[in-house]
């Protein structure tokens, strides 16, 4: 997924304007009317950009949890065993065990999980130092959007590019394993057969 400053979206018909980063209406004020914000601290820029990806991943995880919950709550009747017997005289008889209730999870169904393997956000902004009781670096798109409207060209002096990837879980998040009479592999040294 690549998200650039000049990305434009469309307003939902009959609804409030959609928040769009990099356009004039990227803040929704009270009452649903957008207002323009001149700039923001450079420190907050990455949080703002990555927050969209994080929120989307949060939604994907929530759907996976809901799917897992549904699989544990949905039950079906299954016949666990059918026994076929061949007598000495060649007669075949079939014995069906009583049906038992099983959840979909017990039957092997698993929720499908999705995650962002890679997300890249790249923005061009105007960076400037301002005095806020101590100096601060601020990022602005106002000048760029004004020049785009007036002259059709855009010049910015700063670019921030960030690539997000899933963090691999540490090995010790799972339980230690091992045989009843053998050593316990707690995965702290790479495993029993690490050497």
């Amino acid at each position, binding site marked *: 997924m690549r998200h650039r400053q000049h990305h434009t979206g469309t307003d939902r018909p009959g609804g409030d304007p959609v928040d769009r980063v990099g356009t004039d209406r990227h803040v929704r004020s009270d009452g649903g009317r957008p207002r323009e914000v001149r700039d923001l601290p450079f420190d907050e820029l990455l949080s703002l950009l990555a927050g969209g990806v994080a929120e989307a991943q949060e939604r994907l995880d929530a759907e996976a949890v809901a799917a897992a919950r549904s699989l544990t709550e949905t039950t079906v009747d299954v016949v666990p065993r059918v026994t076929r017997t061949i007598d000495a005289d060649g007669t075949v008889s079939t014995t069906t065990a009583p049906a038992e209730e099983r959840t979909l999870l017990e039957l092997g169904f698993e929720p499908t999980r999705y995650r962002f393997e890679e997300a890249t956000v790249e923005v061009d902004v105007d960076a400037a130092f301002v005095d806020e009781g101590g100096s601060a670096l601020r990022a602005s798109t106002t000048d760029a959007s004004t020049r785009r409207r007036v002259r059709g060209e855009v010049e910015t002096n700063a670019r921030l*590019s960030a690539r997000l*990837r899933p963090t691999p879980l540490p090995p010790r998040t799972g339980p230690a394993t091992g045989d009843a009479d053998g050593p316990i592999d*707690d995965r702290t040294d790479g495993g029993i057969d690490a050497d």
Partner: protein
Amino acid sequence: MPTERWLSRPVKEFVRSVAVSVAEGQEELDRRSARIQREIEREIAAGDLEYDLDASWLRFSEVEADLETTLSIEGEEIRDPDTGAVRGYRPTVVATPLNSRTRSAYDVDAEIASEIRLRIAPVPPERREP
């Protein structure tokens, strides 16, 4: 609201801003993932979820920041802590972000612009013996 727009500040302030931006962004990512993980653990503990799930954790594998600027060396005052008198000057590299206003007001030639480029990447954790 900012009351005055400075033109030049030490380069280290730009570097600090980028680093803080990455730190705050990662903190936001971790906070969201931790919230999801806690909700999953609560549902498992309450018996509402009979499936072991882990929340997805995201991190910045790479962050690059580029700033087009002009660089100059200025003297930063060194003051006596007792008297407040100026004892000397410490050379400091300051940056003036280039934009159309800077170029037109100070007639700065874009061809002599400098570029500050930063790249931040995560450090793999060290193995710790139990």
